[in-house]
């Protein structure tokens, strides 16, 4: 008993072929869109790879780019096949290739679904990469004289201004590192000497933050230094002051940005996957309908199309049998063992 049998007359077959041709070209466009989405994500990740210590995983954008290219290739080929299927002479030369091509299409659809799911699952690994990368980046903030790290200050400042964030988890992260270079410290000042002596590593730690943490919406001019000292500033209480600096940490800000990007890409890829599945099903129907035409000289007759010739369990059994036969053909010397296996399973 065939799976989901549908009867096709000549007109229906022609309509199916034309509809599939159009869908395939729309799908080529969708493949181009997925390619450009992958490219965009790759560029966005590269732009901020300093914040991720250059160790971020490019698996998602690379696979989106690959899937986009493959989709374009497969769908333009399928479009050509659908166009040729209207002419029996041209279709005859495609006939032997259709079954393996359909198998490849099914495999491609499975991989596309996996890639779409990956888009949603990458969040966790991105979070840990960001936390580690930002911590290191902040450590190098002051090294504007060290070649290879001199750009870190500019990168972090622009990041904090653009994403409206401060520090790794919050502005207090800046209190724990020395972000002012020794070059600009006056070592003859008592205050500087006290601060350096106050900790084991001899670092100049302040309860202050760089200017890029300042929030322009605050009603008062930005307070950057002596943040925990209420008496240093008039009418200031550091425990209730919320508008002075950005409250969000840069890790949360970047994570939410990349998550929303990857989520929307995942949704678009899922929609394209659904479209591709419907194209594969249509192509299978066209293939079986054209194959089951009883008399090729009489194109007006009706034929039947189906998804699988037998029901699912029977098809699975037949598939396993053909695999075993393949194994038997290859292993001539172990013929005895194979026959034994065949006897047990059959």
């Amino acid at each position: 008993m065939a799976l989901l049998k549908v009867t096709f007359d000549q007109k229906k077959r022609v309509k199916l072929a034309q509809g599939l041709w159009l869908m395939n070209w729309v799908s080529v466009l969708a493949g181009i869109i997925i390619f450009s989405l992958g490219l965009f994500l790759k560029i966005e990740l590269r732009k901020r790879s300093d914040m991720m210590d250059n160790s971020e995983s490019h698996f998602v954008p690379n696979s989106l780019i690959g899937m986009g290219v493959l989709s374009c290739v497969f769908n333009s080929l399928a479009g050509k096949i659908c166009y040729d299927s209207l002419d029996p002479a041209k279709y005859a030369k495609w006939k032997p290739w259709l079954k393996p091509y359909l198998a490849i299409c099914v495999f491609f659809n499975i991989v596309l679904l996996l890639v779409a799911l990956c888009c949603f699952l990458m969040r966790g690994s991105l979070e840990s990469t960001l936390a580690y990368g930002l911590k290191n980046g902040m450590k190098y903030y002051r090294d504007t004289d060290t070649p290879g790290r001199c750009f870190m200050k500019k990168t972090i400042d622009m990041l904090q201004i653009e994403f409206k964030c401060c520090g790794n988890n919050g502005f207090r992260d800046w209190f724990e590192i020395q972000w002012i270079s020794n070059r600009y410290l006056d070592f003859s000042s008592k205050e500087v000497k006290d601060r350096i002596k106050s900790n084991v590593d001899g670092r100049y730690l302040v309860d202050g933050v760089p200017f890029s943490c300042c929030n322009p919406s605050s009603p008062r001019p930005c307070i950057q230094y002596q943040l925990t000292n209420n008496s240093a500033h008039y009418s200031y209480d550091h425990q209730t002051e919320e508008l002075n600096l950005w409250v969000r940490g840069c890790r949360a800000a970047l994570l939410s940005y990349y998550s929303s990007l990857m989520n929307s890409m995942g949704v678009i890829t899922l929609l394209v996957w659904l479209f591709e599945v419907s194209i594969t099903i249509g192509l299978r129907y066209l293939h079986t309908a054209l194959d089951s035409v009883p008399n090729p000289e009489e194109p007006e007759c009706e034929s039947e199309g189906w998804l699988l010739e037998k029901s699912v369990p029977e098809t699975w059994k037949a598939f396993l049998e053909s695999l075993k036969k393949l194994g038997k053909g290859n292993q001539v010397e172990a013929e005895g063992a194979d026959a034994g296996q065949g006897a047990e399973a059959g």
Partner: protein
Amino acid sequence: MAPVLPLVLPLQPRIRLAQGLWLLSWLLALAGGLTLLCSGHLLVQLWHFGTFLAPSCRFPALPQVALAAGAVALGTGLGCAGASRASLDATRYPPWRGVLGPLLAAGTAGGGGLLVLALGLALGLPVSLDQGLEEGLGTALAHYKDTEVPGHCHAKRLMDELQLKHHCCGRHGYKDWFGVQWVSSRYLDPSDQDVVDRIQSNVEGLYLTDGVPFSCCNPHSPRPCLQSQLSDPYAHPLFDPRQPNLNLWAQGCHEVLLGHLQDLASTLGSMLAVTFLLQALVLIGLRYLQTALEGLGGVIDGEGETQGYLFPGGLKDMLKTAWLQGAVAHRPAPEEAPPEEAPPKEDLPEA
């Protein structure tokens, strides 16, 4: 009465004219659409910078007029494309015959007038932009501290965002901030001797410092930003106020905004010039086509040669005909003469 600039148009050149006109009309529609987009973009930019432009500045009139001119050019282009397409097909031409006259008149008067006005504005208005920006930025700087005054409470945030985004500081340089009080009195400690000294040191009682807001800081600078005590050579190690300050943005916001808006205005001006040229060509071509086809009595495929012209008679004759018609219509009240015709044509009714 001799026709003005006549042109003999047999069948083949007529067809060529119609085809060329169709192409030019689509180009005109494209140019009109681009002008629309350009003026829309300029309007959006002006809306963004609204606080920094004095209300008396007349610069926003330019994108508004250009918007109207672009819309009319787009409509004219589409109409002329339809007309030239119809003139190649005998069955589709008759309904267009009546429309062509008004279309040409509307295109010339409305579209041409608007375009000329827009071009004039594009050449003349950028001068007033300078003045408007000067006033507007001065007001914004003065109101930076007024974060609790209704009507000016957004000045600080907008000024900070302007300086951060456009990489500029103050009006013409960072020293402009030394001349205004940018710290609100609400956050000044009245018992602090330094504050009292500063307030008493000037006539208006303003708290002036040699410091700048944080948004002036340049992230490319290798040292953490120095914002305060910028005139004091001993306040910070390795800092010399006499050297150019690398800490802060060097450009003033006036120059940056002026350059940005003038660039947009000059792009818009060149788009308007191109649209004007295309519109003139299309309208002249359509006029020739119309008069040539009228000469054949509206029959498209007529093999005969006809003449196309711009005006049926000379300009003087046309005005004379118009005056006589006007005089006949106004016979019961002869003192109400058409004002523009009256001075040179006084002697004509007697003649």
